């Protein structure tokens, strides 16, 4: 069985992000990680692989060269292969273009099913996995919390819905987007880290996937960033003064009553 996992490299949640003066681009501190939700997808794929010797896991990302680091993290966790679909001179932000490129790769590479995180924590568009499924003409289920592979043709999934969970039997091949909490992503063993350090990760030109300029060049983008605005600045942290916990609590209650007016 061949499992394909899509991941994205995103800015670390603690990276400093500033809006540039043109308000259309960002200056991001050089700290990146694998997207939080994708970690669960990678972990789930590896868990399935560990149950069956014939199962392989390949991971890919569409992104800049630095995204290789996220791929190495996936290898360190235990995937077999990794591929970088390089967004050299291509639009790296539009979800539709990204979905076309990922679908193009999936078609070429082949798969039994695809896993990816439910959303990326930077743009939170939450639609790439679903669009890829549509381009590939395969069923998809979003926000899955449980996945049982019955056989090569069938899977049983539980997905999160409002107020509970839905159990669905799905014909394979299919695509599943993974919700947080599905599993506990493993901390890589040092042997995995060493393997990842030495791994050869091919860089693939998206145009080699049978995609045309009209399909994936910037003109094909359906979204256009008009501007970025910073969220409203939160008021500065105020440390409640007091020599004892009782004094501090009294001070806090006073502030909540008289200044915040919530009591």
């Amino acid at each position, binding site marked *: 069985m061949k499992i394909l996992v899509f991941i994205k490299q995103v800015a670390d949640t603690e990276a400093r992000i500033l809006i540039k003066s043109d308000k259309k681009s960002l200056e991001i501190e050089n700290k990146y990680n694998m997207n939080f939700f994708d970690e669960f997808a990678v972990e789930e794929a590896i868990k399935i692989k560990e149950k069956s010797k014939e199962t392989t896991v390949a991971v890919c990302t569409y992104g800049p060269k630095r995204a290789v680091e996220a791929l190495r993290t996936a290898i360190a966790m235990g995937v077999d292969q990794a591929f970088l679909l390089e967004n050299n001179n291509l639009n790296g932000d539009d979800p539709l273009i990204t979905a076309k490129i990922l679908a193009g790769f999936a078609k070429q590479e082949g798969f039994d099913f695809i896993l990816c995180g439910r959303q990326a924590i930077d743009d939170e568009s939450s639609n790439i996995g679903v669009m890829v499924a549509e381009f590939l003409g395969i069923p998809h289920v979003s926000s899955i919390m449980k996945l049982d592979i019955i056989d090569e043709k069938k899977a049983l999934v539980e997905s999160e819905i409002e107020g509970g969970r839905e159990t669905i039997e799905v014909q394979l091949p299919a695509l599943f987007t993974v919700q947080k909490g599905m599993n506990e992503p493993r901390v890589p063993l040092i042997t995995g880290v060493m393997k990842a350090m030495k791994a050869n990760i091919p860089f693939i030109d998206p145009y080699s996937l049978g995609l045309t300029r009209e399909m994936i060049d910037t003109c094909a983008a359906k979204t256009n960033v008009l501007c970025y605005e910073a969220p409203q600045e939160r008021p*500065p942290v105020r440390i409640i003064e007091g020599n004892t916990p009782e004094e501090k609590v009294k001070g806090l209650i006073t502030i909540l009553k008289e200044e915040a007016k919530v009591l």
Partner: protein
Amino acid sequence: MDFQLTEEQSFFKKTVADTIDKIVAPRSQEIDEKDEFPWELWKEFAKLGYLGLRYPEEIGGLNADKIMSMTFYEELARGSVGFAQSVIMNSLMGTYFIYRFGSDAIKERCLYPAIKGEKIATICFTEDQSGSDLGATRTLAVQDGEGWRINGTKMWITNGPICDFCTVLATTDPSKGLKGLNFFLVEKGTPGFSSGQIIHKLGCRGTVTGELVFDNVWVPYENLLGEEPGKGVFYVGDILDEVRLMTGSMALGIATGAYREALEFARKRVAFGQPIGNYQLIREKFADMDTIMNAARLMIYYGSWLLENNMDCRIVAAEAKMYATETCLKVVDELTRIYGANAFAYEYKSQRYFRDARFLLYGGGTHEVLKDFIGKAIIGKL
């Protein structure tokens, strides 16, 4: 001259840092407060395989280069100094002479389980009257039948009270001073070998440090870790540079942790209507800290590069240890100034960095001894 870490080294550093942030750092406060050896964390961490980092793959290690090893020590110390001390003892000093000189049987019993975390290792140098002055070692080993009989007491032994085996420095000929020194393996359960007083420390809490007592301890000939008696001091030289760079790396890790705390606080703490990070004198502190930390890092990397390439690094390793330690002490001091009165409270992390950093003055050589060594090496014999 390429000052960049290779892509492999960068990835390693990031992965180790992430691992420490996930499983060690969140428990650092608890480890410090309870001052008990964190057995659960030890088992969890040992499973990841880092304890064998510097040893060859053939024996279950990872053949890591020196930059990677130093990066590992740095990130560990950034996460929890108390935990780091025990891990590094198992990964380096506590197992090195077993690896170099132990018989196959000794390696099976001690080295391989230690680098899997199944056994706890330590090394015993210090006595109540001899720390830097190894020539004053009084622990005596005398030939007795087909082995050696050892008597003495060692102090300030990291992992000592919980160790499964130790490498003990003992003299076979006190009249020869340094040239009478040797290393012996003593295992837990050997009659006469026991743990004495536990030392309750100002910092590096969580690591168990104490006395080890050798009361007529008999060990067979094969437990002499060395080619022949009297070569111990030369073997110490083999590992001393690495230990000094390791200590410097730990200093860098503590400094980095403290620096980040200070930066976060300076950005958030408001005084007179604005974050204190806007004030010049606070900015000056960060300028100074960043400068000396960068310098310390370059010295550590340079020393590691020399060591990796089998080049003489005695002076650079000693200088790097000293400079990184003084840098760390400066940074943790500034952290407590930036924190203001909060630094005086146990509930804030700043006090832990301040306490933990002090041990750096002693590990790997006091700076008074190191300066004398460096000066003598530079000026030469007159």
